């Protein structure tokens, strides 16, 4: 059906695309650490070498009933339901920052369970619904 030249060009472009995808894959695999925006508490826990003088981001859920405001700072626990990290932060917090919601903290690890943040970002999840629907869902889950 296809001419010889057409077929050889098709094969050529297929090889070009395959090698481009392969290159991209290898590139991103080796850069993985820089591509991820934040690390979870478990990833921190399992990490072999940690640079305590390097700024990093950690992310997870704000654990329920752990947000404590004091005069100069706000403390809370970031959890991924396996491991936890205690976070201390002073500064302004985004509107969506709340318990049991996603959060990303930027700053320095003091040790594997203790994080000094200098920036807090709220992470919004993929759930979109009107307030009434959420209320109905909450009621349902309580029953």
């Amino acid at each position, binding site marked *: 059906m296809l001419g010889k030249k057409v077929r050889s060009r098709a094969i050529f*472009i297929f090889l070009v*695309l395959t090698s*481009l995808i392969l290159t991209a894959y290898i590139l*991103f695999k080796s850069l993985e650490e820089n591509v991820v925006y934040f690390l979870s508490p478990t990833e921190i826990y399992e990490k072999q070498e940690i640079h305590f003088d390097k700024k990093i981001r950690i992310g997870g859920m704000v654990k329920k009933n752990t947000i404590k405001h004091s005069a100069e700072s706000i403390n809370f626990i970031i959890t991924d339901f396996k491991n936890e990290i205690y976070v201390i932060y002073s500064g302004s917090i985004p509107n969506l920052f709340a318990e049991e919601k996603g959060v990303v903290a930027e700053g320095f690890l003091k040790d594997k369970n203790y994080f000094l943040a200098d920036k807090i970002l709220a*992470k919004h999840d993929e759930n979109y619904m*009107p307030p009434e629907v*959420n209320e109905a869902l909450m009621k349902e889950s309580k029953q």
Partner: protein
Amino acid sequence: MFKIINPNNLFGTSNKIRKVLFFLFIILIVAGLLEALWFSPKDYIQNHAVRIMYVHVPSAWISLGTFLAIGVLSIFSFIFKNKNFLIISKCLASSGFMFNIVALVTGSIWGKPTWGTWWAWDARITAMLLLGIFYLMYILSWQVFEKEETKQKVSTIIAILGIVNVPIIKFSVDWWSTLHQSSSVNILSESTIHSSMIVPLVIMMVAFVIFSAVIFLMKYNSEIIKLKNKGLDRL
């Protein structure tokens, strides 16, 4: 094989189609904006900020889809030596680029009140910026070179390099941990967006697609006129 999209066939009809499409676009954008800004509910967490999504998400989809089309058409034009595919690609680029910028800007406006930052170098956002750079290079490649052949070659190379970025953007939120949320509208799995919010999203999506089509037909028309003036009525 590709007779249907022969420029000489499209040329006669596109003027009329364009007017009808533009009329449709006006109706849909009015309905879509009313639905998005007025009738649709606010979100349980984001409040009214959710309304930005009705512009942001269709823009992002279209800019991705348009580049995919440019890439695929460029590959096809290389395989089948069909110049018309290249002209179609060239005419698609500007509206795709515009929607790319709209997606980045509206995302930034949404990010400040929800995340607490205008910009984050996470995989999704960075890859989207990269798509914008590819668009810009693609458009420039048609402008800066003198010889028609060089223009075609360079733009094809840019399109093929850029098309690799398209699936990276789409799946970045699944492959890596990103600040950007993963997708709420899914075909294979259940969507995590309430049906009352799907309505304005779909209307806006259709409106933007039609807008892209109108811009495309205008550009394509003028390309064909340019070609005819050169005395080349066959591609």
